[in-house]
């Protein structure tokens, strides 16, 4: 049994095999981060008008300009859109469940440093034709913007230490704009609010203007 001494004839020859000369490439990552996002199994699903959002509607992942006042602009689709930086979107689909159950799951990679360390938001839409939002949002019936203060709701920095990956889940949502959420993170829901009617928007604008004038007069 000794390696250094031959005590018996070798009954099993050392296998003389130079098995292979491999020329292989290391796995390369050039500052690519990968982000998963989902309202998947055993997580809150998405509701609109009392029903799960049907399949083929869309959830987008991205960030809003830092400093952008989401609360103040939550009803203003144009303002929201101009401040939005979309990484990717995915369609609602069946996830270990029947179809049209208000669930989605997607994953996307980027090497764009513009996303580095930005807070992640999900912008979720319900459209009249259960498809992606049209340009100008003409088919959007409702939407909600959701985020979280959880540490993983930050886009990984391309210069950070691997793994440059994060996943965000509807069960982690604790911030909602133009939407709400249940406390139950597993069996609860994210709720989208309807698009404000133009009349409602107009009234809101009128109210704001009146308030502004009233304040101005008070100051004077």
């Amino acid at each position: 049994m000794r390696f250094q001494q031959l005590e018996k004839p070798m009954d099993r020859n050392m296998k003389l095999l130079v098995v292979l000369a491999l020329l292989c490439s290391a796995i390369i990552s050039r500052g690519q981060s990968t982000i998963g996002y989902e309202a998947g199994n055993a997580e809150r699903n998405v509701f609109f008008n009392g029903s799960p959002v049907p399949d083929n509607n869309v959830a987008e992942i991205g960030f809003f300009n830092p400093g952008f006042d989401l609360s103040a602009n939550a009803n203003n689709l144009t303002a929201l859109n101009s401040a939005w930086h979309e990484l990717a979107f995915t369609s609602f689909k069946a996830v270990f469940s029947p179809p049209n159950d208000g669930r989605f799951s997607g994953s996307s990679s980027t090497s764009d440093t513009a996303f580095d360390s930005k807070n992640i938001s999900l912008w979720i839409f319900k459209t009249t034709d259960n498809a992606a939002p049209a340009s100008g949002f003409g088919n959007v019936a409702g939407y909600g913007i959701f985020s979280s203060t959880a540490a993983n709701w930050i886009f990984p920095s391309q210069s950070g230490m691997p793994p440059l990956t994060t996943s965000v889940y509807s069960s982690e949502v604790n911030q909602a704009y133009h939407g709400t959420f249940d406390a139950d993170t597993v069996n609860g829901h994210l709720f989208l609010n309807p698009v404000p009617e133009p009349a409602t928007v107009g009234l809101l604008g009128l109210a704001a203007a009146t308030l502004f004038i009233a304040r101005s007069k008070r100051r004077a």
Partner: protein
Amino acid sequence: MGKVYATLTNLALVALLTTAASRAAAVETTSENFVVSATAIQGTSGTTPRMNFFGVSTVNCISYAGKATAAGTGSIADANATWKQDQFNGTNGYYYVELDSGVTADVVRTDAATKTLSLNNQSVSLTAGNAYRVRKHLTIADIFGKNNEAGLQAGPNSSQADNVLLQVPQTQQVLTFFYSNVPGFTGWYSDTYVAAGGVVVYPGIGLMVRSKSGRGGIVYLAGAAKEGPTLAPVYPGYNLLGTLKSQRSLKLSELNLYTGDPTTGVAAGPNSATGDILILLHPDGTSATYFYSNVTGFTGWYDTTYTASANVLVAPSSVFFLQRKAPRLAFYWTIPAE
């Protein structure tokens, strides 16, 4: 390419010579397949450093093999041993013992008088007749070359030089090394300027190289293919792991990571938020995340888009991150045999 070919030829020759030498001092029960590999480290094409990930698919050849002649815990007693005092520790380098079960433990003392090896793992238990093998650990200098034969960009500090990154799962730290070209201080150093050529790279651990120039490099390795199972610890948090395979890809379902018992393998879950996750790094720099679903009717490996993924392949020399989610404790992963 000509350089690569020439070097590979040389390596093959070295392997042949090594084997021939081993035959002259043969051990009857030990046979090993020798592997020569060349792994390309790609440089960056711009100003952003490029990360390279790879797993070491070879181990050093057996330095000693024998059978325990008495039961022992945390040590190996072999009355037939011929080793010298401190042959497998101290200034001779870092060695470890591997058993047929796949258990490994570092040698901390080699006692010639009592013919005993003391191990750093007190839970290692042998009975008389158990076979053991002693191998020398691979080090940073072994893998990248004592004189930076891999050709990474040297520099006066870790900021300017390419970096070898070693993730330490126990502490969740990433250690940074570089090849110093400072006269009088050439060699491998940590980013805190401690000599690091002798830093051990444990079997099954993945490595990262952060390239900062366009030059890249090639890591040449010649050694034995690790046959038989290997036990690798998986700690809470991120673990950068390889399969130790040099020849064949493994499916996720073949990795032995899911055992059905969350104390001995990855924990399943209804989604990737709750289960332990495996992050597979792709050649294009992207990654994919997998979890083991325990949802009735949907059990098995799935990705985060809930696509069945049991047949996803982990290529030889590739690596993946395994995230063991707290508060789950560490477990030993049995890396499948070659």
